[in-house]
């Protein structure tokens, strides 16, 4: 941590102007628990059953305990949204556990609620249809590190096939053994991705992945209609905060964006950049948007929403003293070719694997408490 940084920017925690933001002010000094609270508020009648489950989770194991801690600490959740969650939980907790309830709430409700001004007023930063004035500059450029999930890989394969068919005078010829293995382990599309040479092949990849992305959004329509599967929520950070880390590559990107659950995987990720105005609706996330994940950590609700949530820094980035970056949520959106900036996958021989969750959470907890206790928030 840079000595004296806090003193040099005393307005950081109260200033709405990001120019004043200096992450180096976040020093680790204080401790303090929020036991007996939910969403950093005293437990009322509606949340008593949730509190009971949280107590059980806290004594179960570190993973469940982490999720419980997130729910207790997160003051970003508004009163109305807390009430909605309490209602949902009360109807479900007789049949399942709280982790599942939180998972279902975040997957079925969050995509709609995060952009609802009644339920998420304080966190909502940009929503032209419901907010008179955006609370963040519309031209703020975001970065997002997104996994090529199964459906997207499948759609990418479709796009590749369409291109091949076009090259074969419109006839669906296909090809040899590679095609046959596609449905088993995506080796066809993986092989194509492996053979790309960046940056020269980036335009070709960007062209196909944008087509694939659009097909994903289109294909979600049927389930969206019957409510079984909502829209996808995307998570993003700010490019100005990300920029110093760009050169370090995917592993660093995953560490600074808190993607701890992906660090032991060998899956493809894309780096996207786009302005806030292209997101449709854009907000600071809460634990209800993040769902039951131990790799998320709440941010003091008193921080200016435009700073976003702050990511939990992991692994080598944490050891290097990198401080939490802003994180935001928005709904899945159409991609443009120019939004696609990179494609990468952790090499097999990389020394990745899961990072130490306890250390990362302890480190972030200290940061959290320092911010809470710094006095600057008051």
């Amino acid at each position, binding site marked *: 941590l840079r000595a004296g940084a806090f003193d040099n920017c005393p307005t950081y925690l109260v200033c709405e102007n990001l120019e004043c933001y200096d992450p180096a002010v976040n020093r680790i000094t204080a401790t303090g628990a929020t036991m007996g609270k939910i969403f950093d508020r005293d437990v009322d009648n509606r949340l008593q059953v949730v509190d009971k489950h949280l107590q059980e989770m806290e004594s179960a194991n570190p993973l469940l305990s982490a999720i419980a801690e997130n729910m207790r600490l997160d003051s970003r959740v508004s009163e109305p949204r807390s009430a909605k969650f309490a209602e949902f939980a009360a109807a479900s907790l007789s049949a399942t556990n709280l982790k599942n309830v939180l998972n279902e709430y975040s997957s079925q409700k969050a995509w709609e609620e995060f952009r609802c001004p009644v339920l998420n007023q304080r966190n909502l930063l940009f929503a032209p249809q419901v907010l008179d004035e955006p609370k963040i500059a519309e031209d703020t450029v975001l970065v997002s590190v997104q996994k090529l999930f199964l459906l997207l890989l499948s759609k990418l394969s479709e796009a590749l096939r369409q291109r091949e068919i076009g090259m074969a005078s419109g006839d669906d010829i296909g090809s040899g053994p590679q095609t046959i293995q596609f449905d088993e382990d995506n080796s066809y599309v993986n092989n194509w991705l492996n053979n790309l040479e960046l940056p020269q092949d980036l335009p070709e990849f960007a062209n196909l992945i944008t087509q694939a992305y659009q097909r994903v959004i289109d294909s979600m329509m049927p389930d969206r209609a019957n409510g*079984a599967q909502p829209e996808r929520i995307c998570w993003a950070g700010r490019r100005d905060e990300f920029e110093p880390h760009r050169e370090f590559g995917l592993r660093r990107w995953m560490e600074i964006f808190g993607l701890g659950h992906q660090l032991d995987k060998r899956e493809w990720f894309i780096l996207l950049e786009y302005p806030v105005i292209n997101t449709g609706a854009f907000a600071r996330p809460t634990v209800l948007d993040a769902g039951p994940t131990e790799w998320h950590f709440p941010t003091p609700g008193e921080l200016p929403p435009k700073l976003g949530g702050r990511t939990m820094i992991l692994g080598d980035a944490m050891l290097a003293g990198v401080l939490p970056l802003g994180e935001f949520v928005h709904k899945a959106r159409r991609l443009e070719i120019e939004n696609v900036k990179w494609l990468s996958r952790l090499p097999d021989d990389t020394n990745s694997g899961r990072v130490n969750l306890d250390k990362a959470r302890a480190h972030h907890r200290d940061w959290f408490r320092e911010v809470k206790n710094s006095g600057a928030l008051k």
Partner: protein
Amino acid sequence: MNDLPSLSALPELARCPSQYAIDEHAFNTAMRTATEPRQRELLQWLYSSNADSYKIIRWMQGIGLALYRQEDPALALISALPSDDSLCEPAIREVLAKRIGEAVICVANDESNNSDWNRLAEDTWIQLFVLMRRLGVSNFKTAVMQLFQRCEREGRTPFDLVSEASRYFTRFVMDAQPNNELEKRWIAMIKGSDDAVLKASLFDAFCGLLSMPREVSILGVNECIVAFKTRIRAAFDDESVRSAKQCELQQLVDEKFPQYADRIRTLLLAEDGDIGTLSDFEQVYRGDQAALAQIYLQEVSSDADKPQQLRAKVRYMELCPQTLPSSVVEFVTDENRRGLVPGDHKCPRESRRGQSTRGLPRKKVKPETLRSYGKQLRATTKG
């Protein structure tokens, strides 16, 4: 907390009560090493004797299964299985596969208006198919065929026919087909026809054909080789691309269907008029002497030169002596046989090396006899 029963958070009656469950020993053994909540949740569900198999469909929709951000339900569930070296892993995997099969059959047979057959998103089908593929397609033959039969009744798939889900499904059908009933469908697709339920490229359709449980007739295979050549010629102007596609087909057959490798290689060559020896050709037809005899008989009455006719007659006589037409016998003296048909069945191509055909110099002489066989074969199969 972990040991709470975790049924779906959306209470409903069991839609598909399971007949299968893991035994207590497997459950206890696996629970000892299950550290993550989803591992324990999966084990509890598999151990429960009155579980609803339909839960797997909901999990694949992302409902009721705790997922990390951007995590795919199918891969999450696979990761929740005990490690491969666990002694109880096969038993657990087997019960999981059976329950998935039950759920798929349930979807396939639900004829109600609001059944999931009509409602599941493509993503859910893909998650389900990936899960099934990872657990081994052989576990799901019954389920896949019931899904296929439902598709046949409806005349459509529950997903977009142009999507990858259709190709996944077609691959499942290929592997699950219990008999050769789909032979005409595969051949039609190889010829380029659209199908209402199955979606396959030319190569995939070949796989469908060659995956059938019983051996495909040589005439059927040859018909497809002719169609393959025709489509490749129409699709690609570049001769090198055509050649590459032909090599890919051969490579595919070599790797996946070695029982057909020799005959397809020879048929591809014969189609090019590039077959080297009579024995190659006969090798292909070893399993179908009637087809071979028919070709020889046609050769006898063709306008080929006398020695060629005689060779054909000898071959025919060897194959079908009891049905030899009397007109053939007069040509087949012992002397002729010795002089015209060497024991190794070699074509007299050496004597023709260097001659050109079609007015163009070629690297290898194409024996007229064998080109003629190819033509005859085409005529036969087209008829």
